[in-house]
């Protein structure tokens, strides 16, 4: 595999310890859960939970890009932030370069921080208006001592150039720049810390088509030059198709399908993926696409439907879907999906048993699930 090139020309110390995790995969997520408690206004008691991320699992190969798609509010950003430990997970584990993040002490985590970065959607609010650009990019470089002091100035210039920012922008302030330039500054800030993994949370959604193209090309070029691994969150499916090697689809906090980009676009398995992809607008007036218009709207993540969370809107919903939760299964090699349509005979039997049990308990079809 290709060795990761280092922008500061310092070698990255290899992660220590025998690992069963790591190796081919830089990031592995196992059953990650993030619930936000809902507090009552009187006694600050927890009266329920918003299940923003409700048990997701996947792996990202080194130097590759995983696209994460889904409707707004389905938990994409929360997933990204929880993976980076910007939010404390409710349960589950994230392995970064083979190390389980939950086992790390505060200090060890702090040392790891520069290697995992995030670029946010809104280039307007994510930059401090009072700092000049050079300082925005360099602040954390100094804090984490990424380069020796005497090389600092030169290093910042190099990072800026890599992101297509002229050096003399260093002394200017964010408000003097356009949206596209600000997004470059955000990328430069992440890049300067010499990360391995960058979460890009809707990095081009606030930008124009022509500027989007520039930023996407920049991200791709940086990946080629420095071997970055990306998690690319977006609701623009054509952008995701262009940039990603693999794509994960989320619905209401759960991942419903995950596989290679080409495969998921050419033959999606999950009914939700199918509906989502059929809604992509095509820039050709003659293509009358056969849109699957989803009925109704996204149920509340505080009170998701029983069984398969998608069953209230699924065209192919079966009796069992209303009671039994479909299992996250590798249906085909490297193609994961959670849907009863693809149950193996054993899974089918188990699901039917679960349905009978639920019916016996008298859980109503669409009734609320009990909350913790």
């Amino acid at each position, binding site marked *: 595999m290709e060795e990761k090139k280092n922008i500061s020309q310092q070698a990255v110390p290899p992660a220590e310890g025998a690992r069963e995790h790591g190796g081919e995969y830089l990031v592995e997520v196992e059953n990650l859960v993030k619930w936000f408690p809902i507090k009552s206004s009187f006694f600050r008691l927890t009266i329920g939970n918003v299940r923003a991320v409700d048990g997701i699992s996947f792996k990202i190969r080194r130097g590759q890009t995983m696209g994460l798609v889904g409707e707004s509010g389905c938990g994409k950003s929360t997933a990204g932030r929880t993976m980076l430990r910007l939010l404390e997970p409710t349960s589950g584990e994230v392995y970064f370069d083979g190390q389980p993040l939950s086992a790390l002490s505060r200090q060890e985590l702090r040392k790891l921080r520069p290697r995992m970065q995030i670029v946010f959607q809104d280039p307007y609010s994510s930059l401090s208006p009072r700092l000049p650009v050079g300082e925005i990019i360099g602040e954390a470089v100094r804090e984490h001592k990424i380069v020796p002091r005497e090389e600092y100035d030169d290093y910042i210039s190099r990072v800026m150039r890599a992101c297509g920012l002229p050096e003399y922008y260093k002394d200017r302030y964010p408000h003097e720049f356009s949206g596209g330039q600000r997004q470059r500054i955000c990328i430069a800030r992440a890049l300067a810390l010499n990360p391995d993994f960058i979460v890009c949370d809707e990095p081009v959604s606030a930008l124009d088509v022509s500027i989007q193209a520039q930023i996407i090309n920049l991200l791709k070029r940086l990946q080629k030059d420095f071997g970055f691994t990306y998690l690319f969150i977006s609701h623009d499916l054509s952008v995701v198709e262009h940039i990603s090697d693999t794509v994960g689809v989320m619905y209401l906090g759960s991942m419903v399908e995950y596989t290679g980009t080409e495969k998921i676009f050419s033959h999606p398995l999950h009914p939700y993926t199918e509906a989502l992809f059929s809604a992509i607008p095509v*820039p050709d007036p003659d293509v009358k696409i056969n849109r699957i218009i989803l009925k109704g709207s996204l149920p509340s993540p505080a009170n998701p439907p029983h069984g398969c969370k998608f069953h209230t809107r699924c065209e192919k919903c079966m009796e069992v879907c209303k009671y039994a939760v479909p299992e996250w299964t590798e249906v085909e090699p490297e193609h994961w999906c959670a849907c009863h349509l693809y149950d193996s005979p054993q899974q089918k039997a188990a699901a039917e048993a679960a349905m009978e049990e639920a019916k016996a308990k008298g859980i109503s079809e669409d009734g609320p699930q009990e909350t913790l």
Partner: protein
Amino acid sequence: MSEHKNSSYISAKESRKITRFNRRVTKKLEREREAAGHDPSLYTTVMKDPNNVVEFDNVCTYFFSDNGVVKAVDGVNFSVPKCSTVGVVGESGCGKSVTSLSLMQLLQRPSGQTVGGQIRFNLGDGTAYDIVKTPTSKMQEIRGNKISMIFQEPMTSLNPVFRIGNQVDEVIKLHNPQMSDEDVKARTLEMLDMVGIANREGVYRMYPHELSGGMRQRIMIAIALACSPTLIIADEPTTALDVTIQAQILDLLQGLKDKLNSSIMLITHDLGVVAGMADYVVVMYAGRVVEKGTADDIFHHPMHPYTIGLMRSKPVVGRKVDELYSIPGSVPNPVNMPDYCYFRDRCELTCDRCKGLYPPEIKISDTHIVSCYRYYEDGEVLGQPKSVNVEEL
């Protein structure tokens, strides 16, 4: 080592001069409007083609800002035919919204002024208003009754402290003062039903924050359609929404348009959205229309280098490219536009003629018009867009 030279820096003396000039000009323009408002013959006119709902005829809308005059819209020509959807596309800041605000007379006054051209709005009785000169009292009758607008951010256009039902009621009452309260409520519920809100009685009593983005946009559409307008202006109606909800909203808009026999002016920067909905497409660049035609003309035979660049820079599902095309350079400074083709500094297809003045409109076919010298020999040469000399105001 830093370079502070920047053409947009202005000395204090210049700045004072600009302020004085702006005050004088805007005052004069406001006074002229006031005077024109008393005489209907000054603002009543006829359509060039009675089958159009709106005709923009060399419209110039400028902002008299502290940095100088921003020519946000400068000689825009196009029309919206009856019962059709016209898509207006272009980059952020190219003047799409200012064009629609000029039509609604909702420009930020006094700094924003339509200083030249005509916007003819068909009244349906053989006459038309020239919106530029129409007094505010007459405009209020048109707004909401005949033209209504749907904005990009549905949250900011709904009042957060009032229930949904009251807000829709209010609009219906405003336009139908004779209706009884029960009738108004019945009409509101009917509208909510029409825009596909399942739980209409419940939603009637809800506050905006209790609804999702898609539902809020449906409410905005209900409000906009409450009075069966002849023209609906939709300014980026789905930009803030996801693809699945976007598909629902666009389907809804298209269906309602056919039901009400209205026209839609659809402003967006998403070419995919335009392709799926529009009958005609207008491409704007730096305050001017650079190309217009039917959806087929624009998507299958794009001619202007900017249109071609715009199409190439958008990734398309199923079309694999290694690197996305991106148009080099950036939009010229709006305070100081060149006198040659605005796209020349970014254009990769320039020819000898491009050294000359801004290119004229060239009529390639009955529907397809492009402003570019490359096609000078290929069609009938029409006029150039005319700027207004602000010094003479």
